[in-house]
Structure formats: C-alpha cells, structure tokens
C-alpha cells in the first residue's frame, strides 16, 4: 500500500514538473510582450527599463529557474497588465468561480436526480423519452452555444434575468457571495444553469440506469412485499443504493466544472478565474496564464491522486494490477 502511494506521488510530481516545463517554455514563445505593453511612443531608455523590470532580458533557462524558485514560494511573477502578483490575482478571482461551480453542482443534483428517477421508473412514457433525448442534446451541444441561447431567451427576448456580471454581493457567515442577495441570485442563475447542463445530463443518465437496474433487485421486491408504500421504497431503499455512483462521479466532475467555467464565465462576463485566463491569453499577460494553468493542473493532479488512492483502498484489485504491469 505504501509503495503504491509513493509510486503515485512520484508520478504526480513528474506530471506537474512536465507541465511546468511545457507551459512555461511554451507560453514564453508566443508573441513579444514588449510590443504589447510598451506604448509605441516610448523611447529606447524607457523600453530597456521596462524589459529589465519585467525580467525579459535574461536567458529563458534562467527565467525558468527563477520561475521554479518562485513557484516553490507561491510567487508566479507579477501580471504585466495589473502589476499585481499573478497568484494574488487568481486567488482574488477564485471565490466567484468556486461559487459558480458549487451552485451548478447543486443544480445538477436537484434537477438531474428527479428527472432521471422519472425516466427510470416510467421508461415507456413520452415524457421519459423526451428527458432522455434532452440529455443527449445536453451532452452533444457546446456549452457556449447553450449559453448564447439562454441569454437570447431569458435576457433579450423575455428580459427576466440579467446576462452579465455577478451582481450585488453580501457578506454572510464571513463569506462574500452573490448567494445572499436577490440581485446576486438573479445574476447567478443563468451561468450556473449553463455550466450545469452537461452534469444534469450525466446525472439523468446515471440515475436512470441505476433505477432500471435496481428495480429488479431482491431488496426492492422484499421492501414491496413488506407492504411499504411505493414512495418509501423509492425514496429510501432505491435512493440509498443508486446515490453512491452518482456522488462519486459528481465529485470527479468538480474539476471539469472549474475547467469548463472558462467558457461560461466568458459568455456571462462572470468575474472568475476562467474569464481572467481568457482575458490574459488575449492580452498576452504571460505570468497570469502560466499561474492559472499551473494551479489548475495541480488541482487536477491532486484530485486524481486522491481518487486513485481511495479506489485502491476500496478495491485492492486496482493496486495489484498496477504492480503486475
């Protein structure tokens, strides 16, 4: 077990190191930030001063070593545009993204499970077929397209909900969030729904498959034979058993939500880290791009590591297979 965890840790470290090399050297090859950041009227002395201030005059290998040293101490360099430390900038934008991701996860559960349950319990009804067809669309439609349609319908045609920004935030229990104000909630609804769409479809599929499989199991028949009401059989006996895979998958999907928030945040001008990434990419703000990519890679590597280790604890076959290979 220890050997397995050590091997996985080393592997995770290797992935992070490789990504740091790819991301840093890769990003430093795009364009010349000097052209972007210094006004065309600046004289030579001013240009030289700025280049030196940003550390762009040193050889790239040295810049990388400097970068690694910085990463170890949580310093990814200063944003070219805002003049603030990149990490601070990202951490400043992170709560908005986490808020969006958590609310959309909640939506996936609250909408996905009832719909999936219905489709699983009454597979032959027209509504069920509609739900399944909808979930296929939810999988195959690009997120940005659905976001566009949501804006068009709810913000432009009906005018019910605002389509850009985060709205008013308030502090409650020490957390600043849009959840605590009416205006904030109205701003949150569309982007969260947009981000949740893929996961709603996923939960519908998982719940439906789980229900159809479980309905023929003996424990369901036994619960019915005991004379329990149908609603109790479904809400207690059935739900308990089908929730496990749904919870596991949704936990894994959280990382994906953070990655996909790049798209949703850009459409709805939601001031999170995904929008920050796109803005920085367009403005060639290298330190912020590098810092964002490194943080999100680190995040994914940690999620996968934890899941791998948890699985190996729960299912020893995973561990044995890894040793055999």
């Amino acid at each position, binding site marked *: 077990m220890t050997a397995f965890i050590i091997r996985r840790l080393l592997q995770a470290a290797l992935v992070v190191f490789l990504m740091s090399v790819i991301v840093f050297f*890769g990003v430093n090859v795009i364009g010349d930030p000097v052209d972007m950041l210094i006004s065309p009227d600046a004289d030579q002395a001013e240009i030289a001063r700025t280049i030196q201030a940003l550390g762009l005059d040193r050889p790239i290998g040295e810049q990388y070593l400097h970068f690694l040293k910085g990463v170890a101490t949580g310093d990814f360099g200063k944003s070219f545009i805002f003049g603030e430390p990149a990490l601070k900038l990202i951490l400043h934008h992170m709560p908005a993204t986490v808020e969006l991701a958590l609310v959309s996860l909640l939506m996936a559960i609250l909408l996905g499970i009832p719909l999936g349950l219905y489709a699983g319990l009454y597979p032959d009804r027209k509504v069920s077929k509609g739900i399944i067809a909808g979930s296929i669309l939810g999988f*195959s*439609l*690009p997120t940005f*397209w659905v976001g*566009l349609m949501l804006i068009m319908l709810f*913000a432009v045609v009906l005018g019910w909900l605002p389509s850009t920004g985060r709205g008013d935030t308030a502090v409650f229990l020490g957390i600043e969030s849009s959840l605590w104000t009416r205006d904030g909630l109205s701003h949150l609804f569309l982007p969260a729904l947009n981000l949740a769409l893929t996961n709603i479809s996923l939960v519908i599929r998982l719940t439906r498959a789980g229900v159809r499989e479980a309905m023929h199991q003996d424990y369901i028949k036994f619960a019915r034979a005991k004379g329990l009401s149908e609603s109790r059989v479904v809400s207690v006996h059935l739900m308990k058993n089908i929730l496990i895979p749904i919870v596991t998958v949704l936990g894994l999907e959280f990382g994906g939500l953070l990655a996909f928030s790049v798209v949703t945040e850009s459409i709805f001008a939601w001031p999170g880290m995904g929008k920050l990434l796109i803005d920085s*990419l367009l403005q060639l703000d290298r330190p912020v791009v590098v810092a964002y990519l490194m943080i999100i890679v680190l995040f994914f590597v940690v999620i996968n590591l934890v899941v791998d280790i948890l699985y190996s604890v729960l299912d020893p076959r995973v561990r044995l297979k890894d040793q055999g*290979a």
Partner: protein
Amino acid sequence: MNTEATVMKETPLQRFWSEFCESRIAVASLVVLLIIILLAALAPWITPQNPYDLAQVDVLDGKLPPGSDAYAGYTMWLGSDGAGRDLYSAILYGIRISLTVGLAAGFIALIIGTVIGLTAAYAGGRVDTFIMRAVDIQLSFPAVLIALVLVAILGRGIDKIIIALVAAQWAYYARTVRATAMVESAKEYVEAARCLALSTTRIVIRHVLPNCLAPLIVIGTVQTASAIALESTLSFLGVGLRQTEPSLGVLISNGFEYMMSGRYWISFFPGIALLLTIVSINLVGDQLRDVLNPRLKR
C-alpha cells in the same frame, strides 16, 4: 421481380445498411448531414456573394434583418452581419472551415492514435505500460483544458488549432485501438496467421487492423463532432481561428456583441448551422455504434 435476387444472400454491406435504416432518426440525421456537406462543398457556386472578397461586401448592407435586399440586388434571407456580409453566404463558407478543421483533426488523431495503440498492444511490457500511463494521465484532464494549454502555447490559426485538437483527442483512439487489438489478437485467425509464419507487421496491418475498424469508425464520428464543437468553442472565446478564417464559431462570436441590441440573427443562424452539424454527426455516430457493436446484436 427477379426471384434470383430475393434468394441471394445479403452482402455484409447491405445488411449493415438495412440495420442502419432501422432508426428513422439516424436516417434523417444522415440526410441532414449530407445536405450540410453538399451545401458547404458547393458554397462558391450557390451563394450570392463571396463574403471574404472585399469587393463584393458593402458596409452599407451591415446589420440588415433577415429578408432585406442587399445593395447589389439579391435578397439576404438570413440578414447580414456587422461588416455587411450576407449571412447565408458566410454560414456556408463557415461550415466549410468548421468541417475541414474537424475532419482534418479527427483524421490525423485517428492515424496517430491507431499507430500508438497498435504499438502499445504489440510491444507489450514497458512500452505498453508507458503509453497507457500517458493515455490515462491525458484522459484525466478535460479536452478543453488541454486545447487551451496548447492554444496558449501555439497561438491562433487553422494549423495550430488542428494540432491542439489532435493533441487533445489522440488518446481516445489509442485506448480504443489497444483494447480492441488485444481482444482480436487472442482469436484463432491471428493464431492461424502466426502458424503460417507471417511477420508481426503483416499480421498487425493486414489481419488485426481491419478488425479494429468498426470501433474506430464509431469513435471517429463522435470525436469529429466534438472536434468541431471544441474548435467553435475556442473560436468563440477569441483564442481559436482568426477573423480571416471565419468558421461558425468565429461568426457566432462576431454576432455576440450585437445580441444585446436585439440583432439576434447574426449569432443565431450560424448557431443553428453549428447545432445541426454537431447533432446530426452525433446521431449518425450513435446508430453506427448500435449497428457495429456485436454485443448489442439482437
């Protein structure tokens, strides 16, 4: 009626076709897809305007609602965009670019993934472990994220987007091919080929590969659709194709700023074209999977 023909056994292709036609939705999707491809291929001959020939575009025609008449005389049935391009023409040219990028990325990823997957299956041992680890690690990241990293590194443009899409997708093919090749190479016909002392290369290419084609075709259709979706996403975000290479994603992105002022058509119609393309490819892919997967055979 020719009695001989009815007695004659169906060829595998005919059987495949009749099974495919069992789903009306799949047939309808195939028809839609073929129409889209045909429209895109014939775009220069069936559009009133080449939207990227500046001599044919008039800024005075800008932002006209659907059904307006252009200065040049023809009717703009789908309206015009901010620069005065006829949207119907722009969409057909856009589908061309979107399809080209999607098909090119899908095809290159298929070739690379197949070679790597077959190598893993036949080299075995450390090579196999190494390749499959790389595949596992890559598949643990969402494709959008991988594409974004590469776009951040490579920059914009058709060739760079194709590279980013291939890098984001090869692993799906590699894993499918390896799994199928492992199953196939345990079967009798491969053993028979070995007994004939054929070389490994020949067995792999002539005997195993053809039997891996069915899952490859299925995954190829679905991945091509997702390549088109991914390209349009990147282009919409402004980090994909350039304004000079207007795919559907670029058109939608251009129209987005006008949406708030009620000029919905500039984004909406290219969006519908994208929707029809992606959904029809996916539905055809779904039916292909049902027909080609022996485990689902009734």
